[in-house]
């Protein structure tokens, strides 16, 4: 590994199902991590449940990489079947290199059109020379060689993943990797990654969905009910065993109507509670989210967004559930909406979401998305934050106990079943302070005021947004759009531009004063988001007075924003 290579490098492995593209990708990520590189891996698959075409998209860097780059430096195609379906997801350029098996036939149109240099390695043939040798391991060897990763790192990663129990498999893989590397050694190299600085920090390999699960448990979640749905299932699957280690349980519900109601029940019983879902499931939870608002029951709902509307594209990302998350409830139903800005931030955001739900006795919706949730990243160990589930619990006192007492803060102490004297009926009907149903205007207004007040009076501290840099131009964004924007801004700054980045972590309630302060002196605001109708921009218009000239930039998924695309907007925006 040289010191002179690129800061980051992007590679993609494609092949049809069963060819082992995903395993190879994962091994590559592990290998890079072992060398002290940061990294990111996302997956694309065809519509088939099994056996369709697949792509592992990876990026490595000497600094954290939390989104993909503008183009892939290297594409390794185990075969070309149907991979043109991924064409739009695999931008290539004239400086890109494509390693292909000559036996795989002609490269697809999008590869040819890119002008990428195509080099041939007889992957299949080489693999066949080793009994049990896998084509994906040969490819891995070739790939590593091309981008400058030492073969030893690959071999180490293979050994770690195959495990000690299968020494034969390790040897077979080692041989395949070596063959691939040797074959590639004869080729003119393309982009190579520079060796990382010393690995001085603790690194994690984690997906956004795992980070969400762990953040939630750290925050105090001890009961989860959920119904499987792509791309949120892994949160449930990760939490099922881990929660049980930490004093909690997970129940698979019969549907999302049940999940949300189960966690209302468990939270009423005193357990900080969560469910995870995607757009279609969130839609089904809407009625009972209103019940949680009215009955002031704390809970966290994670929505891992995918392309909508309706079933849409279950496996692809989009930021288009903002409307429903913020404004989807019937009646006046204020609640909290938060969003992580990248894979790593899922931990903090989930932990904070739990803290907010418990502190404010309200439902909190956390808007993650597929591109964050299902991506695996090599990150620095996230900092510890002190957020825990802190519910104001009634242990005795005034009689009769006023479950919905009109306190100054708007939060009233909650009696947990089992507490003598705290008996009350939690209710979605308009009620008085005691909780008794009422259709009187004064009770209705008092409780609406109370529920609004508790959200408005709360101190959301600095966590409401990530703010970075200074300048007369500001980009306001949220969620998974943040990482490519961050990168584009860094590039623009390198060229001398002064741009401020404001990525909202707290979407609702709106923080007009905080944003106004953050935007002081700003003359031009670019609002960037991944939705077809500009949901975030409309939301900002509704709740904030943005200074100066405002340029909304929005488009739908499923393709992710790329730094270069954002750079274009920034330039077009007057830089």
């Amino acid at each position, binding site marked *: 590994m040289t010191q002179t290579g690129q800061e980051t490098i992007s590679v993609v492995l494609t092949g049809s199902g069963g060819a082992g593209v995903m395993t190879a990708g994962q091994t590559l990520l592990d290998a890079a991590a072992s060398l002290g590189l940061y990294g990111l891996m996302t997956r694309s698959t065809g519509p088939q449940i099994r056996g369709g075409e697949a792509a592992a998209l990876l990026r490595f860097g000497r600094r954290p990489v939390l989104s993909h780059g503008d183009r892939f430096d290297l594409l390794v195609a185990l075969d070309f079947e149907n991979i043109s379906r991924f064409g739009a997801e695999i931008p290539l350029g004239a400086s890109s290199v494509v390693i292909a098996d000559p036996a795989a036939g002609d490269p697809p149109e999008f590869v040819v059109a890119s002008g990428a240099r195509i080099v041939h390695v007889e992957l299949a043939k080489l693999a066949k020379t080793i009994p049990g040798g896998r084509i994906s391991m040969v490819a891995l060897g070739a790939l590593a060689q091309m981008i400058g990763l030492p073969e030893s790192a690959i071999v180490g990663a293979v050994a770690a993943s195959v495990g000690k129990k299968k020494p034969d498999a390790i040897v077979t893989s080692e041989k395949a990797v070596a063959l691939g590397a040797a074959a590639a050694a004869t080729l003119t190299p393309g982009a190579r990654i520079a060796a990382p600085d010393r690995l001085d920090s603790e690194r994690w390999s984690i997906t956004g969905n795992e980070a969400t699960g762990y953040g939630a448990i750290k925050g105090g979640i001890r009961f989860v009910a959920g119904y499987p749905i792509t791309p949120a299932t892994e949160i449930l699957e990760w939490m099922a065993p881990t929660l049980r280690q930490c004093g909690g349980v997970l129940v698979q519900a019969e549907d999302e109507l049940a999940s949300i*109601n189960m966690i209302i029940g468990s939270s009423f019983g005193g357990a900080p509670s969560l469910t995870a879902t995607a757009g279609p499931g969130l839609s089904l939870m809407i009625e009972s989210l209103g019940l949680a608002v009215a009955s002031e029951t704390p809970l966290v709902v994670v929505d891992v967004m995918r392309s909508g509307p309706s079933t849409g594209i279950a496996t692809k990302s989009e930021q288009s559930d903002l409307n429903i998350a913020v404004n989807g409830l019937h009646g006046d139903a204020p609640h909290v909406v938060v969003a992580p800005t990248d894979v790593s931030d899922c931990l903090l955001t989930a932990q904070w979401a739990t803290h907010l739900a418990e502190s404010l006795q309200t439902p909190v919706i956390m808007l993650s998305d597929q591109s964050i949730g299902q991506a695996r990243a090599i990150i620095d160990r996230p900092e510890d934050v002190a957020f825990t589930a802190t519910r104001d619990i009634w242990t005795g006192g005034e009689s009769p106990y006023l479950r919905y007492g009109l306190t100054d803060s708007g939060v009233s102490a909650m009696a947990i079943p089992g507490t003598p004297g705290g008996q009350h009926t939690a*209710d979605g009907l308009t009620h008085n302070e005691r909780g008794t149903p009422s259709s009187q205007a004064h009770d209705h207004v008092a409780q609406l005021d109370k529920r609004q007040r508790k959200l408005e009076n709360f101190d959301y501290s600095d966590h409401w947004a990530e703010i970075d840099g200074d300048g007369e131009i500001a980009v306001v964004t949220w969620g998974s759009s943040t990482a490519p924007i961050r990168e584009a801004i860094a590039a623009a700054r390198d060229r001398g531009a002064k741009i401020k980045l404001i990525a909202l972590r707290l979407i609702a309630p709106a923080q007009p004063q905080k944003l106004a302060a953050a935007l002081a002196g700003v003359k031009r605001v670019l609002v960037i988001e991944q939705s077809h109708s500009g949901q975030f921009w409309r939301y900002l218009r509704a709740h904030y007075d943005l200074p100066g000239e405002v340029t909304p930039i929005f488009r739908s998924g499923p393709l992710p924003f790329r730094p270069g695309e954002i750079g274009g907007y920034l330039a077009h925006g007057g830089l």
Partner: protein
Amino acid sequence: MNIQNNERAFKPAEYKSAVKPVWCPGCGDHSVLLSIQRALAELALPPEEVAVVSGIGCSSRIPAYTNCYGFHGVHGRSLALATGLKVARPDLTVLVASGDGDGFSIGGNHFLHACRRNVDLTYIVMDNRIYGMTKGQPSPTTEPDWDTAIAPGGTGLSPFHPLVIALASGANYIARAFSGDISGCAKLIVDAIRSPGFSFVQILSPCVTFRPDQQKGWKDFIRPAMVPETDDHGRAARRLMTDDGFNIGVLFRGARPPYQPQPLDHRDPSHLEAEFVL
């Protein structure tokens, strides 16, 4: 439930709150409330260790009339809410109250799955074969020729068999009661609460306002079940499938262990980081 060994005796009145029921004079639900009070007193359960969960409907108003913890949720979802509560808090005694509309129409799916899951809940459905609260629409147990505004001349649909559905779905205890017999009703509720797992008690509870036929009519039909209770699924299925809906008593008592998932350990979450660390 978790039978407590309590030192002191409880009176039924201790389970009643100060909130005045909205029910019509003569509504069967008044008697169901009394039966529940008596049952809880008989079991000597401290009111704060009991939770009553419901949906929406006249019948579903019952939690606030008790002096227990209560949750008056949304229409049709009481069983799911109660499941979360009981799994998180196995120490509580959890009753679920519903109506034939709330429980069998909109709530049907949770009924199936609560029976299947067999969490230790006692499910009381006040069946008046009508939607009372919304002023008289047919429910899944309404007779096909019952005339209503929304279905003039009747729906033409035969009522279905909630007790067989409960059995097929896995309920561990199935009984039928009549609100007109408060002490019989209370006795069944005591038995249902004591029975482990999911206990389903259908209580025929007349709606005097939208089903004026029931109050007199039902008295003539209702009788204690002739055949003794069974634990045989096949026999129970046949019997419940062919009964006329008026046999009172315990009709099935199974032996499935309740579902109560438990934590395996109580470790600090930080140990989970090992999985991520490179």
